[in-house]
């Protein structure tokens, strides 16, 4: 059984989820696309926080949450309107609540009068609440015995069996929208519809708006949904029974359009049949009616519960979740990693067996490899979290930044449900914060400047996340002034980062700001902080195996793109050999491999060459040179060239001695033992039991430039210069 401390921990976790919901909901409300449900959700979240706080004794939290909740109640009942001013107060209330939660969690004493300004603002708005005023409970949520209620003792007198009488044929409007997983759970919509048809006269039309093009059709996904009417003498229970097994896997709407008595049936989502209000009169022991009001039969409030609005397809299903300690998941991840290594060794052994003997063994091994891959994917997905949890901090950040300037900025967020490995989420916060700070501080201009430039007063920062080509791409795009390339170039020259006569393109100049020691901020502004430059952001991103790229358009804005790996621990790699050394290259960086003829290689300087490939020139780099190993093949020997993608369109041809095949490798970090070695990202254990280093392709391209041959090259050729700045 859980101890009180553990329960408190659980409570704080619940609070954090609630706070995220509140933030998201209030943002929706402010942007004008909130539904009734949104307001309800925010109210419920605050109410939950209050409830739990009361139970665990966090009085300051209870007090504030109560006022917050009261205002939200007024809004959701319609007795208060959510004006922009009200919403602003609600937003700051959410910030205060968040702070109070943090303080309660840290066990800090809440300073007297904390949040009073906001509280007063809330109370002020509440005072103007007309309808709710009399019915409202006392400001302090004390032990409230003020409602006259006679507890109803259990009545054991037998009650005549309730038969659900269908009173004449009804007409029901039905909307049936299978969700993604319905087919996978072996539920065939057509069977269901057939059963429905057996109940009476069914008039349905299939909706085809969700059908994609044939090429994009996934065969195990339902795309068609239906709306229509059913005329039947059957009871509601019988209709619900038909959908009983699929209730979770579809959006279902059954509305009684010709009810016998006043109230319309509420939209169904429970498998237990719920009779319409009038039938409840026959339930045992009707309670003593409260003295002030005579209970009306079909109260307008009840019938008013949302009836016909079709549920949006993006409504989240009731998730079945459970809490697991991270440590446990990490242990499983490690075990899967070891499994992958062992399986690679097995593969090696099978390879070494004499010809013809391995047959069946190879087959089974293939299966094992397949299952391990699936296992790895499942386990990694356990660690996956939606980026929303990091994104959710940004609106508040922007609010705080804006409070200190006269600028107007709107933050748009897209793709918050995109999932990323947990460890990446944790390391994403700081870089994102810094980039957005920069945008607000340096990127977006003052309202006056923006108007003068023909832009709208309000700047926009768009934060998006999506899966793209095996990576997660996060983009931060603003419509500000972009980078002042003249100033940047000047500064770079001053600092000796770029030679005085080098000519650089706009993109190359933009990327200069990520070089270490670069900062054009004349004064260290309070907002952007000190000493944290874009170079730190870049190394943060690279540390988690990602890439960052910048694109700036003078006067139009700037786009920063972060490309992050989907998972960290296991990767597909190509095993290569140079000299006596074996290395592994990430398969994702390899464009193609070839063995060029001598004629296709032109030598420019020393052993460095250029490969002519389909009309393009690709600079060649010897791995042996970069890592200072002598290679075994002679000058004229046939080498293998791996066309490598080092990010941002930079390509070069890596020359190695041999390709040894590709396999899944488990990434083992060596940083603790060896620190950061340029060109080497990590290490792994190959199938033959030997250790191989995993190459850091981006650093390799940096290395390629910094060698003496490289600098000479960069002074002359444009493509190599681009190379230099990646």
């Amino acid at each position, binding site marked *: *059984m*859980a101890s009180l401390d553990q*329960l*408190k921990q*659980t*409570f704080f976790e*619940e609070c954090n989820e609630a706070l995220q919901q509140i933030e998201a909901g209030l943002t929706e409300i402010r942007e004008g696309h909130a539904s009734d449900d949104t307001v309800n*959700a925010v109210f*419920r979240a605050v*109410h*939950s926080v*209050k*409830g*739990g706080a*009361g*139970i*665990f004794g966090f009085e300051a939290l209870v007090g504030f949450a109560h006022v917050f*909740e009261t205002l939200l*109640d007024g809004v959701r009942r319609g007795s208060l309107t959510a004006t922009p001013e009200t919403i602003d107060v609600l937003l700051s209330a959410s910030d205060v609540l968040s702070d109070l939660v943090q303080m309660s969690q840290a066990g800090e004493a809440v300073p007297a009068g904390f949040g009073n300004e906001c509280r007063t603002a809330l109370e002020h708005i509440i005072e103007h609440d007309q309808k709710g005023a009399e*019915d409202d*409970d*006392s400001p302090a*949520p004390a*032990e*409230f015995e*003020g*409602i006259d*209620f006679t*507890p*109803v*003792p*259990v*009545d054991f007198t037998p*009650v005549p*069996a*309730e038969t659900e009488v269908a009173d004449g044929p009804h007409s029901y409007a039905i909307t049936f929208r299978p969700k993604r997983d319905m087919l996978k759970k072996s539920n065939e919509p057509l069977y269901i519809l057939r059963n429905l048809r057996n109940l009476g006269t069914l008039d349905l039309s299939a909706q085809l708006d969700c059908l994609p093009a044939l090429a994009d059709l996934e065969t195990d996904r339902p795309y068609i949904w239906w709306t229509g009417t059913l005329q039947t003498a059957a009871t509601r229970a019988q209709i619900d029974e038909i959908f009983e097994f699929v209730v979770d896997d579809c959006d279902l709407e059954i509305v009684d359009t010709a009810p016998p008595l006043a109230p319309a049936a509420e939209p169904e*989502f*429970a*498998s*237990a*049949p*719920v*009779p319409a209000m009038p*039938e*409840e009169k026959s*339930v*045992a*022991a*009707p*309670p003593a*009616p*409260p003295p002030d*009001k005579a*209970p009306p039969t079909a*109260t307008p*409030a*009840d019938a008013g519960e949302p009836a016909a609005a079709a549920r949006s397809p993006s409504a989240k299903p*009731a998730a079945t979740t459970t*809490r697991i300690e991270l440590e446990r998941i990490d242990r499983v991840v490690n075990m899967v990693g070891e499994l992958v290594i062992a399986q690679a060794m097995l593969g090696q052994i099978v390879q070494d067996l004499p010809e013809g003997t391995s047959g069946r063994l190879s087959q089974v091994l293939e299966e094992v490899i397949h299952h391990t891959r699936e296992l790895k994917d499942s386990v990694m997905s356990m660690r996956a979290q939606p980026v929303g949890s990091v994104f959710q901090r940004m609106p508040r950040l922007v609010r705080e930044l804006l409070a200190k300037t006269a600028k107007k900025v709107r933050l748009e967020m897209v793709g918050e449900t995109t999932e990323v490995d947990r460890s990446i989420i944790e390391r994403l916060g700081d870089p994102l914060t810094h980039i957005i700070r920069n945008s607000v501080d340096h990127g977006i201009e003052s309202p006056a400047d923006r108007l003068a430039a023909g832009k709208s007063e309000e700047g926009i920062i768009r934060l998006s996340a999506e899966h793209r080509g095996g990576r997660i791409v996060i983009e931060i795009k603003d419509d500000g002034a972009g980078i002042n390339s003249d100033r940047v170039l000047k500064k770079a020259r001053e600092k000796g980062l770029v030679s005085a006569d080098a000519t650089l393109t706009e993109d190359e100049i933009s990327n200069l700001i990520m070089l270490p020691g670069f900062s054009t901020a004349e004064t260290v502004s309070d907002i952007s902080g000190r000493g944290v430059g874009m170079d730190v952001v870049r190394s943060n991103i690279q540390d988690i195996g990602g890439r960052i790229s910048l694109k700036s358009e003078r006067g139009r804005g700037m786009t920063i793109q972060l490309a992050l790996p989907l998972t960290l621990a296991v990767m597909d790699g190509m095993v290569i050999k140079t000299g006596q050394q074996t290395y592994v290259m990430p398969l994702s960086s390899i464009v193609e491999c070839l063995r060029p003829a001598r004629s296709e290689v032109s030598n420019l300087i020393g052993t460095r060459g250029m490969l002519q490939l389909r009309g393009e020139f690709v600079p060649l780099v010897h791995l042996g040179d970069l890592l200072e190993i002598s290679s075994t093949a002679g000058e004229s020997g046939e080498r293998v060239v791996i066309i490598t993608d080092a990010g941002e369109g930079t390509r070069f041809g890596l020359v190695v001695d041999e390709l040894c095949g590709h396999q899944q490798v488990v990434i083992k970090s060596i940083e603790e033992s060896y620190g950061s070695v340029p060109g080497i990202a990590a290490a792994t254990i190959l199938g033959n039991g030997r250790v191989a280093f995993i190459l850091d392709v981006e650093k390799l391209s940096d290395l390629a430039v910094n060698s003496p041959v490289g600098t000479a090259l960069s002074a002359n050729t444009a493509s190599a210069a681009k190379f230099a700045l990646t």
Partner: protein
Amino acid sequence: MPNAVAIKVLVVDDQNSVRQMTRMTLEEIGFRHIHEAEHGKQAMEIASLQPLDLIISDFNMPEMDGLGLLRAVRGHPVVRKVPFILLTGRGDKELVVKAAQAGVNNYLIKPFTATTLREKIEQVMGKLS
């Protein structure tokens, strides 16, 4: 006089921390057979499969709130007579009226002590031994 140890009770609340606290409080009073549900649907599943003597449910839950659950219970042929106590964080008259109409047996405001919970249960089920 019902015996607390023998009573099978179902606690419904979407907040795990609150559910556990309610469980602890019930155990303090002497209850031993305590089922839990996170939301209305789960509650109805348990209710239709297990014999229950008492349901204690929070009002504030997503998808199906306590009132909705009460109605579902009162409408279900098998479990409709099970005593139902509604928990709420707000002394909301309107809510209590609706709950009364729907057939709730008692209501309780959070946070509550073991003593108060016991009182409320005894009001409905008779003195507990």
